[in-house]
């Protein structure tokens, strides 16, 4: 397969290398600063760890745009001896998502977790480490280093959930932790087998050795790694830990969990199956199996989202469903429609991230303002929190896939790809998934506009006010999700440039 590996790759200018390193190390050192007592080090750590990220990414994006994907050999040791970073359009896109969603969610969290005081002291070092860990994960080209990164993501994300402090949150954290540790072990066992069979841990070099290794060892290794990632990525039917964990976490944490943290596992599944596995390994069956799981997620998550009585649980089950789209594209990897499918899948990654983060921030504002997120308590929301409702609705438009949102574009591309490649069952699943999404989003909106029975509703006086900036954070993300539907042409071109090579059909 024609991966970027076969094209000659130059190491980029030192400026790009330094920008890549800074993207990982600024939040890391920021976390160290935030450990120190007092407000100043905490604020310094947050500002220095998060604010420069977009600027650095502009440099990285321009370099990748002009010169193509690049490596950075850490310590100057070439793989397989050392560890290298790899940056291509997909990685750049993920880094942008971390910078934007992580940044806006951080602004939202600034009010609930004031830096340097009380719970803020516990919150910010973990948050910055999580951002750093995700950036490191998206850049790492080494299977074992990715194991360490995955553990770091898990061990920073779970305490952030537990910071909610409720019994539900602690229980959800415990369950998440046990399953995540199991998932890491499965992943590690697979990596151990791959190293033994190929003598390398480099994600992009393993493919050279896989052809010579016994197929059974390779199949088992890939199956174990995938199983671990499916469990970490909460892919149906291994999603059981997700809804409670995402729904009970503090608002900004929920946003980052749903928009970014579960995507780390999906991202690695992409890397594994679309970059590492060469054509010699019969991958068609595995990709179809993954897509079947995706279809299951889309339908099951959609139905369960429809049955929830609480806003945050609806949104959490919606995440279970929307992750399904990301796996649906895989069987099309050998078809001529693959570039379109890849664009659609990647665009879904982006637009779902923005929309879901917006929904969770809006839900956090509503929960904080009304003291409840039961759908039955949301009536007359248009009078009580019009802007939060507006953000929720705009993000909902993207989740449903209505024009002109980013979600619409993603789903349109996916439909086109299934149509062209003649994968009719995928087309049927896509349509059904979108209908379910429309149903659960409308159900939320209907609940907020209801006016019946004023005696049952809580009096408006109970409404607490929300800092305007927190409302603005949710709105901003929702606007970005919508805006992703416009101005998409250069973005899609960029994504297409990074399309993983296609298989020659058997």
């Amino acid at each position, binding site marked *: 397969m024609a991966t970027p590996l076969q094209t000659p790759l130059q190491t980029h200018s030192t400026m790009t290398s330094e920008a890549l390193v800074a993207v990982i190390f600024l939040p890391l050192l920021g976390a160290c600063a935030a450990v120190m007592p007092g407000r100043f080090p905490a604020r310094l750590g947050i500002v220095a760890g998060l604010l420069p990220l977009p600027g650095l990414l502009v440099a990285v994006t321009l370099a990748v745009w002009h010169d193509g994907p690049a490596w950075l050999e850490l310590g100057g040791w070439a793989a397989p001896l050392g560890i290298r970073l790899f940056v291509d359009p997909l990685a750049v896109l993920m880094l942008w998502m971390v910078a934007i969603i992580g940044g806006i969610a951080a602004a939202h969290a600034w009010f609930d977790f004031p830096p340097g005081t009380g719970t803020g002291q516990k919150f910010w070092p973990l948050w910055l480490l999580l951002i750093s860990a995700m950036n490191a994960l998206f850049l790492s080209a080494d299977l074992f280093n990715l194991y*360490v990164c995955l*553990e770091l993501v898990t061990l920073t994300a779970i305490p952030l959930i537990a910071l909610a402090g409720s019994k539900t*949150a602690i229980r959800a*954290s415990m*369950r998440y*932790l*046990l399953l995540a540790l199991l998932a890491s072990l499965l992943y590690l066992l697979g990596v151990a087998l791959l190293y*033994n069979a190929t003598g390398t841990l480099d994600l992009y070099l393993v493919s050279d050795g896989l052809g010579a290794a016994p197929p059974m060892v390779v199949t088992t290794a890939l199956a174990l790694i995938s199983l671990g990632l499916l469990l970490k990525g909460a892919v149906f039917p291994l999603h059981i830990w997700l809804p409670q964990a995402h729904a*009970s976490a503090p608002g900004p944490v929920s946003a980052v969990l749903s928009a970014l943290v579960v995507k780390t596992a999906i991202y690695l599944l992409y890397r594994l199956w679309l970059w590492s596995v060469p054509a010699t390994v019969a991958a068609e069956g595995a990709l179809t199996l993954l897509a079947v799981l995706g279809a299951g997620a889309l339908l099951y998550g959609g139905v369960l989202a429809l049955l929830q009585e609480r806003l945050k649980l609806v949104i959490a089950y919606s995440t279970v469903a929307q992750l399904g789209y990301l796996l649906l594209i895989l069987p099309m990897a050998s078809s001529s429609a693959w570039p379109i499918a890849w664009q659609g899948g990647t665009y879904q990654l982006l637009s779902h991230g923005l929309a879901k983060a917006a929904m969770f921030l809006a839900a956090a504002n509503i929960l904080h303002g009304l003291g409840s997120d039961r759908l039955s308590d949301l009536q007359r929301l248009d009078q009580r929190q019009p802007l939060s409702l507006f953000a929720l609705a705009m993000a909902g438009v993207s989740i449903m896939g209505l024009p002109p949102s980013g979600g619409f574009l993603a789903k349109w591309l996916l439909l086109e790809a299934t149509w062209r490649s003649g994968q009719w069952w995928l087309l049927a699943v896509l349509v059904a998934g979108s209908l379910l999404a429309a149903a659960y989003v409308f159900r939320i909106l209907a609940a907020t506009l209801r006016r019946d029975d004023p005696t049952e509703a809580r009096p408006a006086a109970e409404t607490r006010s929300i800092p305007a900036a927190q409302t603005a954070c949710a709105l901003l993300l929702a606007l970005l999700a919508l805006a992703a539907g416009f101005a998409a042409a250069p973005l899609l071109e960029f994504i297409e440039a990074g399309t993983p090579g296609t298989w020659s059909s058997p």
Partner: protein
Amino acid sequence: MNPTAVIYVLTAAAIFGIGLYGLLVSRQILRQLLTINLMGGGIFLLLITLGGGAEGPPDPVPQAMVLTGIVIAVSATAFALALLLRWQELSGSSEVDGDAVTDAVTDALDDDE
């Protein structure tokens, strides 16, 4: 084939299986943590045995991986124990709910309010 290597591969497999069984049937979180650590031990043992430990000094890369793995395991265990203490403080017992599926469906966030 080196008989020592065979012995340790069998041991690794046994520990992994016993750990998995224990994880699935344990009624206490603390014991589930122990079993996860057992499974990890099995994987480490396999890694070193396949890395040639039976014949001479094993491949240094798996050794470094296991060393890193041991430190990560103690970190994860330490955090899990802290979380367990908090959980038991809130609930008064250390069982983890088994029926996760129905649980996740029916559970409400009652204590969030």
